[in-house]
């Protein structure tokens, strides 16, 4: 057991997998010698050599395109897109190629590929370093989408993603890299070393994709969240002082619907929280699933708290971000409904 930041946990997952499996290769922009702009791959090139961890040209299409070819050959590429906001040039390779290769070739060719990308805002990154495009991936059949919320999960989920026989989009909430973010940007950051989930097991362990975690047991209302918003929701619950159950989805596809269903049937109320824009966001899918599964148990309309339907602004970052105050209001409204 070692105290690790989320970046260190992610690096450790790649390190563990690279040492166990010579087919695992890691590459992307600034990923090799320098170790990535967030330093996730620091030291991996020195340890495993240039042919297994290297820098690429600035071409997201190229990074994912060559990774698809390598995966078809039999390697297990774990590539980095520097920011999720930069993934659009690679989208065709993800949607039309990686996601469908197994299906269209009837299993002759497969695509065991992980595309890591830092996601979400909270670092004054403006519209090109803050987006949360998870719904653009969950809408695509043939890929899995994972969003960890802490170092322990990040390592176990990334190991599962690398071991998975199919393509996995691994979205890393960059606001969580150095510590759990409570949603109050004006307060000092708590480091992961002071958080239970900053305790990361050494060596190999896997957290299966498709299993949610209940972060807080409660009876009054169910909060569905993932990534950064798990911690922001915890703050909101503490501030409002209600007995909410907080479910950290961890994996959006596959989705742990059983855990969600059991919780909402117990509480009769549901608030869905994500940082991504509201309209057609993953919350819409969750909302539809919950009302279908739990309609006769619901005592209030399902609420969604999300980023506003605007591009992610720079100066107005904290007006945009669905912080504890907004979540708290939604919780109270849902309880009073």
């Amino acid at each position: 057991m070692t105290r690790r930041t989320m970046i260190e946990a992610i690096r450790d997952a790649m390190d563990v997998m690279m040492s166990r499996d010579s087919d695992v290769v890691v590459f992307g922009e600034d990923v090799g010698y320098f170790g990535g702009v967030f330093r996730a791959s620091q030291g991996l090139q020195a340890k495993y050599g240039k042919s297994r961890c290297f820098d690429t040209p600035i071409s997201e299409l190229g990074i994912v395109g060559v990774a698809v070819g390598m995966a078809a050959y039999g390697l297990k590429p774990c590539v980095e897109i520097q920011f999720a906001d930069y993934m659009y040039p690679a989208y065709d390779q993800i949607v039309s190629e990686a996601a469908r290769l197994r299906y269209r070739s009837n299993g002759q060719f497969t695509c065991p590929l992980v595309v890591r990308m830092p996601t979400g805002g909270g670092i004054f990154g403006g519209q090109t370093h803050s987006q949360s495009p998870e719904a653009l991936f969950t809408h695509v059949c043939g890929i899995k989408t994972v969003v960890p919320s802490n170092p322990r999960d990040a390592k176990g989920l990334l190991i599962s993603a690398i071991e998975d026989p199919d393509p996995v989009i691994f979205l890393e909430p960059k606001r969580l890299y150095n510590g759990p973010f409570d949603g109050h940007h004006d307060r000092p950051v708590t480091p992961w070393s002071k958080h239970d989930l900053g305790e990361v097991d050494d060596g190999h362990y896997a957290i299966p994709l498709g299993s949610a975690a209940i972060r807080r047991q409660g009876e009054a209302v169910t909060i569905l969240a993932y990534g950064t918003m798990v911690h922001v929701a915890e703050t909101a619950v503490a501030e409002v002082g209600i007995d909410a159950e907080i479910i950290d989805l961890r994996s959006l596809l596959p989705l742990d619907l059983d855990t969600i269903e059991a919780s909402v049937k117990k509480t009769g109320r549901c608030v869905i929280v994500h940082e991504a824009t509201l309209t057609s966001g993953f919350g819409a899918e969750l909302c539809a699933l919950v009302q279908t599964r739990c309609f006769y148990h619901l005592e209030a309309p399902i609420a969604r708290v999300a980023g506003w339907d605007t591009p992610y602004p720079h100066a107005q970052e904290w007006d945009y971000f669905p912080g504890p105050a907004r979540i708290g209001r939604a919780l109270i409204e849902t309880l009073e409904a």
Partner: protein
Amino acid sequence: MSDPNLTRETVIPQREAVQSAEYAPLKLHVPEPAVRPGGTPDFSNIRIPRAGQVDRPAIDVDAEAIRDLAFSVIRVLNRDGEAVGPWAGALSDTELLEGLRHMMILRAFDARMQTAQRQGKTSFYMQHMGEEAVSCAFRKALRPGDMNFPTYRQAGLLIAGGYSLVEMACQIYSNTHDPLKGRQLPVMYSSREHGFFSISGNLATQYIQAVGWAMASAIKNDTKIAVGWIGDGATAESDFHAALVFASTYRAPVVLNIVNNQWAISTFQGIARGGSGTFAARGLGFGIPALRVDGNDYLAVHAVAKWACERARRNLGPTLIEHVTYRVGAHSTSDDPAGYRPKTESEAWPLGDPVIRLKNHLIVRGAWSEERHKQTEAEILDTVIAAQKEAEGYGTLHSEQRPSARDMFEGVFAEMPPHLRRQRQEAGV
């Protein structure tokens, strides 16, 4: 009229051209083919050197040193059917006869499948007429384990690679024996065993994947090479550029082919080529040796393919090859070329017909005759019809014999996730 609800930002400024005394007005250039329907076909703009004129450089040559090969055309067969020059002489009579046979099978198969589509036995078909030499000859330069990343007009790779005609037809018919279980459009074959990567149907995407596959082979210190395929039109996609960047940077053991058949559906090759002299010339900016070859000359395609594959195998890096050829038929069963080019254009194509040229060469060599050719044509037709009949025994697109609706839910993931299981249950299959 002023609307008080309009803010300043919503007032759209007038787009008036600003006239200047100093400069003439700008004009947009939109390239046009030399001739349109109703006109007389004209290929005088395509410069074709005599066979045997282009040098054969050493395989470790620098791209810079062979710049002229990106603007010329490597040709082996001359007008008299003789194989001449430094690129000639690699193939025996037996090998050439086999090559002729592959091209004839492909042509016969195309004709039968084209008709089958018209008869409603499948939804769609794409034929190779005029381009048979490109894929059939290239395949013979490859070794077991090498991987092609093809487009939809390289079925010669399968035929020359020994793939079964019955399986091809079953794929086209999407029947119970379709190796792809009815999931893919006709002709989007896949056979790992035959070095034939699953065809996407999205253009150019597979070009960069070929580079990735080749990089993987190098990472694993393997000896296999990859081959990418793209058409003239699709070179305009960003994937093409990305493929050349990555192939150049990592010196990937890959051969990158551009099949320039002059037409991208109705769009002539000048729209994708723009101001560059040739498609091959695009390789030079990346430091990739780039060659143009007579794509209707089986011997030339094979010789250039061998040269490029040898470079890749010797770890000398990528090669870009532009195959200069002509799409005699329609793009697919969904278009009619009479709408965009002169009907007789294919007859005017200066590089002739690949089957006839190889046939004539074999006759000149004394290894073949008109009589044997006719006889073989008839035999091949029988073989193709037999394969087609067998495939039709397993069903055609609209028959009862087709992959089950249950199959539709399989293979999206290695293991079916809960949401798909629920949907399959809901579908009742």
